[in-house]
C-alpha cells in the first residue's frame, strides 16, 4: 500500500505479516501492548520491546454499529479480544463486522486495515485482526 500512514506511531511494524509492537517484562515475564516502559503488572522497569505474534485466537467479539466520538472510519466495524500465544489478550479492531460469522477460538491473523484518508490524501491504516486464511 503506497502512501500509507499508521494511525499512531509505535503500534506495529509493517511487513508480511505485520506485527504488533509490544513489550515483555524480564521480572514477571508478562507481555504488554502497546509498549510500556514500566511493567504494569509488577512495576519493574526491566522491560524489553518485542514484536508480538501475528496470529492468535478469537476470545470475545462484538460489532460497533454507530460511530463513537472522534472516530474517522466506517461503521459497522468489528471489535474484540484476540489471545496471542504469548498469553496476552489484545483489545483490537476486527475486519469482520458480522458477529454471527465469528466463533470462539477462531484462528485470527494481523492485518493493516484502511481507516480513512488524511488531509493529504494518504491512506491511514490501523492494525486489525482478520479470520486466518481469508481472502
Amino acid at each position, binding site marked *: 500500500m503506497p502512501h500509507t500512514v499508521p*494511525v499512531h506511531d509505535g503500534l506495529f511494524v509493517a511487513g508480511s505479516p505485520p506485527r504488533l509492537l509490544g513489550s515483555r517484562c524480564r521480572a514477571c515475564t508478562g507481555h504488554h501492548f502497546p509498549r510500556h516502559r514500566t511493567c504494569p503488572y509488577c512495576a519493574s522497569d526491566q522491560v524489553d520491546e518485542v514484536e508480538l505474534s501475528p496470529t492468535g485466537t478469537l476470545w470475545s467479539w462484538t460489532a460497533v454499529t454507530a460511530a463513537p466520538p472522534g472516530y474517522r472510519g466506517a461503521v459497522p466495524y468489528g471489535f474484540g479480544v484476540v489471545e496471542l500465544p504469548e498469553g496476552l489478550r489484545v483489545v483490537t479492531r476486527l475486519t469482520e463486522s458480522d458477529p454471527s460469522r465469528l466463533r470462539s477460538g477462531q484462528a485470527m491473523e494481523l492485518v493493516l486495515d484502511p481507516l480513512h484518508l488524511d488531509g493529504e490524501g494518504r491512506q491511514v491504516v490501523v492494525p486489525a485482526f482478520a479470520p486466518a486464511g481469508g481472502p
Partner: protein
Amino acid sequence: MTSVEVAGVAIHPFGRFEGVTTTELGVAAVRGALAEAGVGRGGFQAAFCATAYGGVACGHRILGALGMTGMPIVDVEAGCASGGAALMLAAGAIRAGQYETVVVFGVEKMPKGVIRSSFFEPWQEEAGLAATPAYFALRAQRLMATSGVTKEDLAAVVVKNRRQGAANPDAMFRAEVSPAEVLASRLICEPLHLWMLCSPNEGAAAVVLRAGAPGSGRVRLDAAVLRSHLPGAVLSESTPMAGLVDVDVPAPSTLAADDAYREAGIGPGDLDLVECQDTDAARELLAYEELRLCPPGGATGLLAGGATAMGGRLPVNPSGGLLSKGEPLGASALGQVVEVVRQLRGDAGQRQVEGATVGLAHTVGRGANAAVVICSR
C-alpha cells in the same frame, strides 16, 4: 472513633433539562439537603463536589450561588464513582475530627450520545477504540460464554429495573417495558441493545454528613470506600488495550465491597437492599458476584428466583437503577445514597423495601474506580 450520620439528603430529578445550568441543578440539590439537615450558612466546615464534566471550580460556583463560601470546597472526580469518592473524603475527615459537618454534592450535565472523555488518546478515538459500549459488550459476551447468561436474562434485568423505576418520580424513564420490547430495541453492540444501556443525562444529588450523636436515630454512614483496579484484567473498567486474564484479579468493586463490609462490620447477608451500577444490564449481574451477593456463577439464579426484585430477599435497584434514572456521572453515586437513606428512613413511598435497616450503594466505572457505601439505621 467518631461515627458519621446523614443529617439531610436531596436529589434533583435525573433527566434532560434544557436551559437549566449545572449550577442551578447543584443549587437545587444542595439547598434541599441543607434544609432537611437544618443547616444554614456557616453551619458546615467543608464541601466536596463530585463532577466529571462540571468544569473548573464547579463546587465554588454552586455554593457561591447560595452565598455560602469561605470553607474548603474541593471538586472530586473519580468517573462514575465520583460521589462515592467525595463521601469517602468527607466521612474520613469527620471521623478524624477535622470537621463536624460536611456537605457532599454531585452534579452533571452530560453531553448527549456516547460518553466522550479525555480518558482515551485522540488516536484511539480516531481508530474507533474509544467505543465505550463495545467494552461493555465484550464483558457481557464473556459473561454469557462463561456463566450461561442469555440475552433474555439481560432483558430481564431491564424489565425489573424499569418496573421499579416506574415508581420513582426522580427517574428519567418511568414506563414499564416488556422483554420483547427490550430485545426489539436497536442493537448497539451485540449482545447489548439500546434499552440495555443506561442513558447519560443530567441531575444532582446532595448529602449532609455530620459527626454522629448517639441515640439520634438518624441513618448512619457506616462505610464509604473507593478503590481502583489492579492490573492484568483485560476487560476491566480501566479499559486497557491488552491484558493477561479475565479472572483471578479481584475486581475494583470486590476490593471496595470487602473493605466496606469490614469497615461496617457486616457481611453481604446482612443487607436489606442494594443500589448497584447498572450501566448496562450485564453490569448489574456482574455486580451481584463482585459484591458477593451470590457465589461466582450464581447471578442468573439470583435474578431468575426474584430475589433481587421488589418483594424479594434482597431488592437491587429499588430506585429503578441507572437504567431508569439515567446516569449523570458526578451525581449518580450520591443519587443512590439518597435512595438508600430514604429507604432506611421508611420514606421511599410506593417503592419502600419494608423494614429495611441496612443498605449498600455501589458504583464502578472509568479509571477504573469503584465505590461502595454502606448505611444503616
